[in-house]
């Protein structure tokens, strides 16, 4: 049987927030972000960690929020696409994706950008292979991979300056 928590408190984008406590802690982080907190920038794409559209940062590391339970997310620091910019200043990955127009429909962009941000936090000089490895869990059905790869390189350049 699902475990019910009296209150589930999450730290999302540097704020403490409470989510629906009538529901079990097995509920996905993705659903709570979207339905309880109305942070809809994080997308549902497959629900089984195969496409990357739901990627958020948990304690700075990329995670598929669709297979992350609230229990697993509790007490950790979660960053969504809405919290990536510092005020009006876009993260280098956001700037690079916008400038390179590394999207067609853009539905995969949130997840792609979060993955790119996580990569850049590890290295600002990623090799081509490292970029492909970091991004290969993310599907873009418009297949704009050429520009996405270029945008990650551009973002690394911005992060170095």
């Amino acid at each position, binding site marked *: 049987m699902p475990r019910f928590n009296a209150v589930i408190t999450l730290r999302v984008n540097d704020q403490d927030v409470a989510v629906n406590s009538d*529901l079990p802690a097995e509920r996905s982080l993705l659903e709570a972000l*979207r339905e309880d907190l109305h942070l809809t920038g994080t997308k549902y794409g497959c629900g089984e960690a195969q*496409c990357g559209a739901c990627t958020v940062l948990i304690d700075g590391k990329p995670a598929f929020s669709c297979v992350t339970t609230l229990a697993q997310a509790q007490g950790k620091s979660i960053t969504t696409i809405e919290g990536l910019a510092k005020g009006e200043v876009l993260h280098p990955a956001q700037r690079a994706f916008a400038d390179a*127009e590394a999207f*067609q*429909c853009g539905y*995969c962009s949130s997840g792609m950008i979060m993955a790119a941000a996580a990569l850049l936090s590890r290295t600002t000089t990623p090799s081509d292979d490292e970029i492909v490895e970091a991004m290969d869990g993310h599907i873009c059905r418009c297949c*704009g*991979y050429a520009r996405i790869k270029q945008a990650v390189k551009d973002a690394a350049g911005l992060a170095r300056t």
Partner: protein
Amino acid sequence: MRLDEDITTDSIAESHDDDASQVIESVAFDFGPGVSRRSFVQLLGAGIVISMTAGSPAAEAAPPASREGQRRGGGGGRGGAPINLGARIHIADDGTITILTGKVEGGQGARQQLTQAAAEELRIAPEHLRMIMADTDLVPDDGGTYGSQTTPRTVPAVRQACAAARDLLIALAAETWKMERGGIEVRDGAAVAINGAAGNGATSQSLAYSALIKADRASEAFKQAVPRDVQVFAVREWKVLGTPMPRPNRHDLVTGAHHYPSDIILPGMLYGKILRPPAFGAKLASIDLAPAQRQKDAVVVRDQSFVGVAATTTWQAKQALAELEKAAQWETPPHPSSSEIFEYLRQNAQGGIPANPHSDLMASAAKSLKAKYDIAYVQHAPMEPRTATAQWSDGKLTVWTATQRPFDVRRELANAFRIPEERVQVIIPDFGGGFGGKHTGECAIEASRLAQAAGKPVGLRWTRAEEFTWAAFRPAAAIDVEASLDDQGRITSWHFININSGQSSIASPYNIENKHSQYVESAPPLRHSSYRALAATANTFARECFMDELAHAAGIDPLGFRRQHLDAGSRLRGALEDAAVRFKWSERRAANAETEAGERHGVGLACGMEKGSFVAACAEVAVDVAQKSIRVLRITQTFDCGAITSPRNLMSQVQGAIVMGLGPALREEMIFKDGKMLNAAFKSYTVPRMSDVPEMDVHLLDRPDVPSAGAGETPLIAVRRPSATRSSMRRACACAACRCGWPSKLQVIAIGGGDNSVAAGK
């Protein structure tokens, strides 16, 4: 609330004459008989409107059925306008200019392209324009967004309307300044007297549009229709078109601020789930709703075979759905499996498979060949699965959803609930991919039925598994080809039969005296849909593979063989030769004749034309014989779609089309058995990822002398059903046999064995 007929999946919705090639299988709903009007002015503010008027070029961009609808709306004018008067341009009193279009944005770039078109003719910076797309209460019906029609039809319609507005603004300025129109031009959103020649007491040489529309005559002037002879700027005068304009909403896309249809959240909204049959064609025999109804806050709906639930969260809706699934009894009819689908389609060819009318030429020819090609069912799998949020208010239904046919989905909703179309508003926020697959409104209808029962707004978001299973498919194809050659290596007869998938690009572009091409319907077991480039991919693949067979039989290089069957100076031959030169075809072909240890390289090429544009691709692949795997190393593609209006977006479309085409070329194939889809997930239906992307060299041939054709589809056909990659593969395998049209078979094609080797079956 009643449902007169079961939900069926076999009704083909009527389609507009112009768009007969679109494959549209709506799901028929009838939910029986079930509104304050929002004011146009309330939304856009007082101001002046230019409308599409019947008979004007702008109106002719819309399909006939829609023109009929427009006549109801009538003229235009200042303020107090009726709902949806087919307005194309609105200039508010504060000078804000809004362009309205029934086209949708699903990633293909229509928002950007139409903004460019309007900015060009109005001579105003694109960032000062607002674009409202696909809100059926506000915009003109520009027909569906499909068939590469935005570029050749809607862009000209928007340009015509904006050019007409420009002419009227110049006329108003001329009258104000009491000077000839010829002395006035427009720039930066203002009319300007050339050389400062404003005469007779004018204190300013420039009048902003917002000031001009305040002239007494303005509203009267703007009531006229867009005239036929309105002059748009010539290509050489373009300042915005033809340049790489940034996408208008890029900031919202990288910050998560854009609200896709699945991001629409209304106050008090519930989340829905639909009970799906366990197999294709299964009928609900019985169901006990009580266990689901006992779930907290669950609203359970049964309307004959429609069963669904809405609850406060998706999690709760899922619990109730699980109860419904446990309590449902189904009757499941037999259903053909993917392993036998091509035999099934051939056996069910309507009227039988036509005989070759040139069989005498086949018999007497120096050489004659026959081949069969099988092309699997595939899914579009857009990143955003089908979604809708529905709200009933005072008998009016408003639905936010993703569809490529907003006005047709409005009609589907009106029909399903037996209410007038005027009481249905369909709004299409820019959405997460369609690729020809989002033509119908079943998700919108399902959400609306749940919302009707719940008395609250309901959001329905299909799961990935639902998207793979219950969205319509690109039709599978069984293709039979025969041809004869004379002793000079010229094709003397050609017989080409497409069973089941369609007739796009079915006519061979090659010069052949005796040609017979025919599309034959079958009895498809799955629901069909359009797909980017429709059947052009299957037909181009089969034709180009067979051209390689013929070239081989004739002892001629595949490039030379194609050239000798195309007119010198033709656009298709131009594209082919350009791609071959850039690829260094002859050099790479010679080099690739040699094999490497464990891996064999091969090259291939293909070309085709569709919807007024021309494409050719060359590819190099590596085949790992032991692993039976293929890597595409590089693709060179040349694309000619006439005058290029949006180069940056075009490059993105072409690169994306190439990579998308690699999916079905190498791996994608829906596998089903006993009515169940066996690979309805991204882990088993493997679409291209970044690691699949080959080295790409894309060349866009700009032809300012030729009208612009749409470009979202044709760049795919020379790769998808990978004429290029598949024939490369066959060369790499030194395999002259032809049953290579199917990804799973491709994996086990016999390697080696010289020219007479035959591809092994499964």
